[in-house]
C-alpha cells in the first residue's frame, strides 16, 4: 500500500473545520430539549424533554411564522420559479447574439448584489420619497410608500426575488435549450411548424426534465425563505406579516433569549427540510430524471 501521509495532512484542516463548525452545532441542538440558561451552559441546564416542542406548536407567533413561510414559499413557486423560464424562452428566440449578450450581462448583475444594497435601492425608488410615489402624487392619487405597506409585503418580497435572480436562473435553462439537437427544429420547420409551435413541441419538452428537477428541489426547500431579505425589512412592515420560521428563531432566541423554543423551531425546520429534500429527490428519480444524489 502506498503511503498516504500527505493526503491525511491535507485532509486534516478541512476535516477539523467540518467537525467543529458543522457536527458540534448538530449536537448543540440538545438545547431544544433544555430549559437553557446562558449562565449554566449546555451541560448545566435542566432537561425538559419535549416541552419546548409542545410550547412551540401552541405558540400563536410560531404558527403565524409557519403560515407566513408557507404563503411566501407558495408565491415564490408560482411566480418566481417560472420567471427565468419565460425570460430564457424570450432571449432564446432573439436572433441577434449581441442583444442577447447585452441583456444577459444586465440581468445577471443583481444576483451578485447583497440584500442590504438591494433593499436600500428599492427603498430609494419605491419608498415614500421616491419617483414612484411622486408619480402617484402627480396623478392626484397621493403619495404612497410601497416599502412600508404590510398588505402588499409578500408580493413585494416576491418581486424582489424575481428582480434579483430572474437572470441568474436563466443560465441552467439556456444550457438545456442549447443541448436540444438542431435537427429537431429543422424537421419541425419542415412540417410547417411556426416559431410558437416549435417552442411548444420542441423547446419546452427539451427543458422539461431540468425544469421538473429544479421544481422538485424548490419544493424540498419550502420552509426556507430568504432570511436576510426579510429581517432587513421587518422593521418597516411589522412582525405579523413578515415573520417566517428563520426570523422567528432569530427574534425569539437571539433577541428574546427564549433559547429552548427557538432551537426547537430551528430543529423542526431542519428535520422537515431534510425529509422534504430526500422525498423530493426520490420523486425526481421516479419522474425519470437523474435526481440529485
Amino acid at each position, binding site marked *: 500500500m502506498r503511503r498516504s501521509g500527505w493526503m491525511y495532512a491535507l485532509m486534516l484542516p478541512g476535516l477539523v473545520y467540518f467537525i467543529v463548525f458543522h457536527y458540534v452545532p448538530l449536537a448543540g441542538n440538545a438545547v431544544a430539549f433544555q430549559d437553557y440558561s446562558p449562565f449554566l451552559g449546555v451541560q448545566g441546564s435542566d432537561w425538559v424533554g419535549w416541552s419546548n416542542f409542545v410550547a412551540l406548536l401552541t405558540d400563536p407567533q410560531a404558527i403565524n411564522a409557519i403560515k407566513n413561510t408557507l404563503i411566501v414559499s407558495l408565491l415564490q413557486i408560482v411566480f418566481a420559479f417560472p420567471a427565468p423560464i419565460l425570460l430564457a424562452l424570450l432571449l432564446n428566440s432573439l436572433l441577434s447574439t449581441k442583444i442577447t449578450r447585452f441583456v444577459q450581462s444586465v*440581468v445577471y448583475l443583481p444576483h451578485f448584489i447583497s440584500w442590504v444594497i438591494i433593499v436600500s435601492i428599492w427603498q430609494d425608488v419605491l419608498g415614500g420619497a421616491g419617483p414612484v410615489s411622486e408619480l402617484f402624487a402627480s396623478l392626484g392619487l397621493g403619495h404612497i410608500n410601497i416599502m412600508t405597506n404590510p398588505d402588499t409585503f409578500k408580493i413585494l418580497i416576491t418581486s424582489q426575488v424575481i428582480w434579483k435572480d430572474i437572470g441568474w436562473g436563466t443560465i441552467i435553462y439556456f444550457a438545456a435549450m442549447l443541448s436540444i439537437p438542431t435537427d429537431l427544429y429543422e424537421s419541425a420547420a419542415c412540417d410547417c411548424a411556426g416559431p410558437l409551435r416549435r417552442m411548444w413541441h420542441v423547446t419546452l419538452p427539451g427543458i422539461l426534465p431540468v425544469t421538473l428537477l429544479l421544481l422538485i428541489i424548490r419544493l424540498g426547500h419550502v420552509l426556507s425563505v430568504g432570511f436576510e431579505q426579510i429581517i432587513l425589512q421587518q422593521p418597516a412592515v411589522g412582525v405579523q406579516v413578515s415573520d417566517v420560521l428563520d426570523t422567528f428563531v432569530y427574534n425569539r432566541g437571539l433577541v428574546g433569549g427564549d433559547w429552548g423554543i427557538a432551537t426547537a423551531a430551528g430543529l423542526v425546520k431542519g428535520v422537515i427540510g431534510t425529509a422534504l429534500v430526500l422525498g423530493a429527490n426520490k420523486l425526481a428519480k421516479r419522474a425519470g430524471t437523474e435526481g440529485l444524489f
Partner: protein
Amino acid sequence: MTTAETTEHHRTPRKLGLSRERRAIWEGRPSLPVRALKIIIIAAIVIIMLYPFASMIMQSFAGFGANMRATLIPSKFTLDAYRSILGGGIVTRAMMVSAFITIVGTAIAVVLTTTLAYSLTRTKDVPGSKVVLYLVLFTMLFSAGIIPNYLLVKELGLLDSYWSLIIPTAISAFNMVVIRNFFMQIPGELIESARVDGASDLAIFARIILPLSKAPIAVITLFYAVGYWNSFFNALIYINSPEKYPIQIVLNRYVLMGSPLDQIQNPGGVAPPPVSIQMAVVVVATIPILLVYPFAQKYFAKGVLTGAIKG
C-alpha cells in the same frame, strides 16, 4: 460536467456567428409586430434592472436643493457626499473591515477548500477518505440551525471578533464538490508519471493539480470573495462593537434604519443632503462587486453549470 461541455461544443458555431449567420433558413424572419413586442419587453426589462442603480449613482452626486427626479441628472453636481464619508469615520472604517474580512477570508477558504478537495480525490486507496467525503456531503443536506451555531461561536470565545465572520463559513461543501469534480477529471497518467519520478502527493498537488486548475479555482475564489463582501447575517449576530462593523451592517444601520451618521466630516461647511450621503454609501459598497462583475459573470455561469449538473 460532461453535459455542460458537450453543450458548449454544440453551441459554439451558432453562438459565435453574427446574427445573420445564426439564423437557419427555416427560421425565417419574425413579423414586424412580433419583433416590436419583443423589443418593448426587453427594453422594459433592461430599464427595470438598471434604473435603481442609475438613480442611486446620480443621487449620490446631488448637492443640497438639487432637483433631479424627472431626468435622473442632478441640477447641482457635487462630490461632497463622497468627501464626507471617505474622509475617515465609520464608513471608511467599515470598508476597511470588509476588505480585511474578504481578503483574509477568501485566502483561507480557497486554501482549505482545495486541500480538502484534493485529499478526497482518491477514495479508493486512501482509507477513511470516503467516510470524510460523506461527512462533508451530509452537511449539504442538514444544517444545524441558527442558535446552535451562535452558541458554538460564543463557546469558542469568538463573539465580537473578526474571526467569527471568517472561520464559520470557511469551506462551502458545494464549492468543495465543484473543485473535487474538476480535480477528478485530470488525467491519471499525468499523476502516475509524476509518482514514478518520485514526486510526493504534496508535490503532485502543488506542481500538477493546482496549475491545471486555475479556471475553477478562479471560480471559487470569486464565489468566496463575493460571499464574504456581501455577508450580513453573521455580522448581525456576532459583532457588537460599532468599530468592528463591516460595510453591510453600516448600510443597514445608516441607510435602511436611518440612524444619522455621526463623525461625518463637512469640508465645505454645508452638509450634503442625507439622501446623497446614504446613496454614496451604497455606491461605495457596490463598487467592489462591479469591479469583479465582468470576471464573475464569465466564470460564475460556468461554475453554476458544473456544480448543478454534478451537485
